[in-house]
C-alpha cells in the first residue's frame, strides 16, 4: 500500500506560519525514496524545532546509514511550532516527515533522538499529531515501533510508558541490527504481532523494552527492584559501542538546509568518548572508552564533506577536541591544505591551556580572531577539585594572557552554579577570576577594549555519573548566588565594564533534573504538562515552571513523592536507582567511590595518560581506549582548488 504525501494539504497553510521553509524539506543531500520499493521504513525525529534538529549529528548519521541500505527508507521529522500545530489539527494533517511529507504513523519505526530531556513534551505532541497512541501498550501492529536514543535514553524511565524501546549508546550498528530484526519479522508475516517483535528486539540484550520490566516500590517511595516480567528478556540491558570510527565515516553527505539553522557548518567527529573524568559530565561518562578517528579518516571526511556540502566552516567535534593525540598535526595539516580557500576550521570544545591557544591561532590564521572559549566550570580551586576539573588559576591566567597577546579580543568562560558542596564563596570566586583575566589581558596587550564574558549554567545531576546521588540545588539558592555574583562583578566598575555575564534562572534546570533522574512515575507529570499545553520546554518563551510544579503536585504527591523528592534529595549508597538495570559499562561501586572522592575534594587522573582506575567500561564492554600517536602525517596535502576547497578539473584553464 503506497503512502501519499500530505504536502498538497500542507502547502496552502504554509504562508500562514512562521518560517515555513523549515517544513518543505528538499535540503541538499536529502533522500526521498520510493515507498513501495523498500521493506523497512524509519521516521527519525529530533524532538525540537527544525533549526535545532537539522544539524544534529546523530540523526544525520543514522539517516545516511539507513538510506544507504537498498531496501530501507529513512525520513526526518521535527517538532512543529504551535502555529502550524494548530493549523494541522484544524485541517486534519498528521505529523509528517520533511523528506517525503509522509505521515509518521505509516512508518515501521519512529526513532527519536533525545539530546536533552526537555524534548519529552514534544515527543508526546508528535505522537499525538501522528495519530499514534501515547501509551505504548495501546498500540497495535499498525503503529510504528517508537524507539528512543541519544544521551537521555540512558534513563528513559520518565518516558517509559510512551516508548516501545530504547537503545543506549552508539547507534550506527544498532539501527542496522534493529532493521534486520524488523525486516525478518515482516517477511515472515509478522508472527506473534507487536509483542513478538519487541521480544526479538529485547532478547538481543542491547534494546531496552520497558514494558517487559516491572518496577516495584518500597513504602517510602524508593524503588525496591526492577525485574523482567517474562522470559527472553535480560536483567540488564547493555549499551552499544561503535569501536572503529574509521569504519563509520558519517555523515559523508551532510545535509545542507535552505533555512537557517543553529550550526551553519560541517562537523567531523574526531574522536568519541572522554576520560577526563569531569564528575558532572554525563557525556564523558557514558561515551567511554575514547576512540580516536585516524588522521587519514579525518582528512578524508573533511574533504569529502566540503565537496558535498559547500560549507565554509568545519567543526572538529568531540567532547574535548584538543585531546586528540594528534591534534597538532590535524590542525596544521588542515590549515595548510585549505589556505586561500576561505575555509575556516573550529574546535568547539577545548580545555584551558596555552596549547589550545596555539591551536586556535593555527586554525584562525586565515580568518578572524574574535573570541575564544574556555570552561573552568568552577570558580574556586576547591570546587574544581570536587568536580574533577583540574585547572589552576595560574593555568587560566597564562592561557588567556597568551590568547589576548595573540590578537584575540574576547574570552568567554563557562561555569556552573549549584554544584555539590558549593558555597556562596565558590561562586563569588568567578567574579575575582574574571577580574584577574581582564587585568592580565590589559597588561599583556596595553589595550582597554578586551572583553571577558562569563556564562553560567545551573548544574543538573545526571544518571551514570558520580553525582547521580547528589542533591540538586534548589532554584532559590542558585538565583541568590547568581545575584551576589553579579553584584561582585559590578563592584569594581573599571574592570566590570569589560566583563559580560550571561545566565539563566535555575527553574528550568530543576525540571531538567526531575526528568533526568525521574522514574516511571514522572511519566504522568509529563503527560499532564503536555495536556495542559506544555511544548518546547527548552525555549524560555514556551517553558512554564508553574505548569510543571502544578502537574507534579497533582500527579506525584498522591503517590507519596514530589518534585523535591526527585531533585533536591540526596540518595544513599544502597538506593536502587531507576536506571540501575541499564548498563552504561560504568561500575556502580567505582561511581560511588568517585562520588566519595568528590566530597573529599580528591582529584582523579585521565586514564589516557595514567594507569587505569577501573571505571569498569573497558573490561565489561570488551572495549579498549584507542589513542595515537600513530606517527603519520596528514598526507597527501595536495593543493586544493583556487578560491574553493574543491578542485574541479573542468574549470582549469
Amino acid at each position, binding site marked *: 500500500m503506497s503512502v501519499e504525501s500530505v504536502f498538497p494539504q500542507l502547502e496552502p497553510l504554509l504562508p500562514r506560519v512562521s518560517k515555513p521553509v523549515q517544513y518543505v524539506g528538499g535540503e541538499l543531500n536529502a533522500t526521498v525514496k520510493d515507498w513501495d520499493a523498500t521493506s523497512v521504513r524509519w521516521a527519525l525525529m529530533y524532538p525540537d524545532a527544525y533549526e535545532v534538529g537539522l544539524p544534529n549529528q546523530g540523526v544525520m548519521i543514522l539517516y545516511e546509514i539507513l538510506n544507504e541500505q537498498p531496501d530501507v527508507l529513512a525520513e526526518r521529522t521535527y517538532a512543529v511550532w504551535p502555529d502550524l500545530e494548530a493549523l494541522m489539527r484544524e485541517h486534519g494533517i498528521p505529523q509528517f516527515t520533511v523528506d517525503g511529507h509522509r505521515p509518521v504513523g505509516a512508518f515501521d519505526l519512529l526513532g527519536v533522538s533525545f539530546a536533552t530531556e526537555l524534548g519529552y513534551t514534544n515527543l508526546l505532541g508528535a505522537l499525538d499529531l501522528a495519530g499514534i497512541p501515547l501509551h505504548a501498550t495501546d498500540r497495535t501492529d499498525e503503529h510504528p515501533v517508537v524507539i528512543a536514543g541519544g544521551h537521555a535514553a540512558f534513563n528513559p524511565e520518565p518516558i517509559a510508558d510512551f516508548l516501545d524501546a530504547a537503545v543506549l549508546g552508539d547507534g550506527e550498528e544498532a539501527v542496522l541490527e534493529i532493521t534486520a530484526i524488523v525486516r525478518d519479522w515482516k517477511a515472515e508475516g509478522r508472527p506473534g504481532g507487536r509483542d513478538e517483535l519487541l521480544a526479538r528486539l529485547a532478547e538481543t540484550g542491547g534494546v531496552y523494552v520497558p514494558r517487559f520490566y516491572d518496577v516495584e516500590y518500597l513504602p517510602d517511595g524508593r524503588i525496591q527492584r526492577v525485574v523482567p516480567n517474562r522470559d527472553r528478556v535480560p536483567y540488564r540491558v547493555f549499551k552499544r559501542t561503535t569501536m572503529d570510527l574509521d569504519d563509520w565515516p558519517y555523515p559523508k553527505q551532510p545535509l545542507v538546509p*535552505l533555512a537557517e539553522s543553529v550550526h551553519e557548518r560541517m562537523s567531523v567527529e574526531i574522536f568519541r568518548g572522554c576520560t577526563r573524568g569531569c564528575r558532572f559530565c554525563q557525556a564523558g561518562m557514558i561515551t567511554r572508552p575514547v576512540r580516536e578517528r585516524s588522521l587519514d579518516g579525518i582528512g578524508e571526511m573533511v574533504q569529502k564533506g566540503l565537496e558535498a556540502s559547500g560549507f565554509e566552516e568545519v567543526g572538529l567535534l568531540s567532547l574535548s577536541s584538543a585531546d586528540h593525540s594528534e591534534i597538532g598535526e590535524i590542525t596544521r595539516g588542515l590549515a595548510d591544505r585549505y589556505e586561500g580557500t576561505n575555509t575556516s576550521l573550529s574546535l568547539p570544545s577545548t580545555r584551558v591551556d596555552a596549547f589550545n591557544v596555539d591551536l586556535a591561532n593555527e586554525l584562525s590564521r586565515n580568518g578572524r580572531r574574535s573570541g575564544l572559549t574556555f570552561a573552568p566550570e568552577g570558580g574556586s580551586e576547591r570546587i574544581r577539585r570536587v568536580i574533577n576539573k583540574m585547572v589552576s588559576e595560574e593555568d587560566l591566567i597564562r592561557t588567556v594572557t597568551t590568547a589576548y597577546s595573540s590578537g584575540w579580543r574576547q574570552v568567554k568562560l563557562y561555569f556552573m552554579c549549584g554544584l555539590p558542596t558549593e558555597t556562596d564563596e565558590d561562586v563569588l570566586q568567578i567574579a575575582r577570576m574574571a577580574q584577574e583575566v581582564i587585568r592580565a589581558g590589559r597588561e599583556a596587550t596595553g589595550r582597554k577594549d578586551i572583553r571577558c564574558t562569563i556564562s553560567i549554567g545551573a548544574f543538573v545531576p545526571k544518571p551514570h555519573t558520580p553525582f547521580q546521588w547528589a542533591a540538586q540545588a534548589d532554584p532559590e539558592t542558585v538565583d541568590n548566588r547568581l545575584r551576589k555574583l553579579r553584584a561582585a562583578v559590578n563592584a569594581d566598575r573599571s574592570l566590570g565594564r569589560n566583563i559580560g555575564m550571561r545566565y539563566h534562572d535555575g527553574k528550568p534546570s530543576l525540571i531538567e533534573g526531575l526528568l533526568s533522574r525521574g522514574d516511571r512515575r514522572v511519566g504522568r507529570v509529563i503527560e499532564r504538562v503536555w495536556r495542559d499545553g506544555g511544548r518546547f520546554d527548552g525555549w524560555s518563551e514556551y517553558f512554564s515552571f508553574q505548569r510543571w510544579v502544578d502537574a507534579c503536585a497533582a500527579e506525584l504527591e498522591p503517590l507519596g513523592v514530589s518534585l523535591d523528592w526527585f531533585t533536591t534529595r540526596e540518595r544513599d549508597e544502597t538506593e536502587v536507582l531507576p536506571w540501575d538495570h541499564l548498563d552504561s559499562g560504568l561500575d556502580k561501586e567505582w561511581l560511588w567511590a568517585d562520588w566519595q572522592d568528590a566530597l573529599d575534594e580528591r582529584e582523579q587522573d585521565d586514564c589516557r595518560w595514567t594507569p587505569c582506575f577501573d571505571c569498569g567500561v573497558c573490561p565489561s564492554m570488551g572495549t579498549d581506549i584507542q589513542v595515537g600517536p600513530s606517527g603519520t602525517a596528514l598526507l597527501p596535502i595536495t593543493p586544493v582548488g583556487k578560491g574553493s576547497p574543491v578542485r574541479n578539473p573542468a574549470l582549469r584553464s
Partner: protein
Amino acid sequence: MARAFERALRRAGVPMAYSQGFNPHPKISWAGAAPTGVASEAEYVEIQLVERVDPEVLRAELDAALPDGLDVLQVVPASGGSLADRLDASLWRIELPGVDPRALAEAVDRLLAADRVEVQRLTKDGRRTIDVRPAVVTAEAASSVAGAGGSPDRVESGPLRRRFPDDEEIASNGTSVPGRGERTADNVAHGSQIGTRAARTDDWPAPGRPCGILVTVVRQATPAVRPDDVLSALRVVAGLEPPVPAKATRMAQGQLDDDGRLADPLAPVAAPQPATRDGESGQGVVAGPAV
C-alpha cells in the same frame, strides 16, 4: 538563497575572488534580487573569479552543483558596465486565485488611469508610503478558468507573445526559485517554453475556480516596488482584496526600450570586452538563481 548559491560555487570548485580583510567573503553581487515569497524565472548575478574559465563549462558545473529548482541558464563574461544598469524593469505574472478576471481588469484600468497611487508598506523602520504608479510601465489582466474537461484556457500567452517577440531569448535567461513556502519544483529548464507555459496544469488553480492573472512590467525604483505593492495599489484604487495569497512569478528582467519591451541584459554590447578589475582576471555575468 544567496547562501545556497555561495555553497554551490564552492562545491563546483569555482575559482572565486574574495574580499580582503578579517572576514573575507566571495565577490558576488545580486542585481535586483527578487523579494522573499515570490517565484522567479529570471534572476541575474555577477561573480568575480581569479581565473578565466569557459562560460559554458561554468554554467554546466554550477548548474549541476545547485539544488533542484535552481538552474543556471546562461553565463557570459562581464563586458564592462554595471549589471544593475541593464536591469531597468521586471515582467511579473501574478496569479490571483478566486479573483474575478473582470474585476481585476477594471482595477487595472483604474490603476493605469491614475497619476499617483500611494500605498503603505511596513518596513523595519516603521510604515512608509510609496507611490506605486510611476513604476508600473504596463499592466494587463488576464484570466483562466479551468474548463469542465480540466484543460485550462490559454489566455495570457497573448500578452507575453506581444511583448516578447523573441521568446526564446528571454526564456534562456530565466530560472526559477523556490519562494517562501513554495515547493521547489522541476519547473525550470523550460528553454523555449515560455509561450506554452500557460498550459502547464500544475500552475493552475482548482478546476472551476476563477483566477485573475495580472501581467505587469514594473520599473526598478527606489524604494523598490514589489508585486505586493502593485496588489496594494489595486486595493487602493478599486478595493480589490484577493481571498488567498497571490502567487507572483518574475518572468523576465531587462532594459526597457521605448516601446516598453525588455531587452536581454546578457546580450553583448557594441564592443564586448572582458572586464578586468583589481588586477585580477575578471569574469562572469551569470544569469542565475535568486533569493
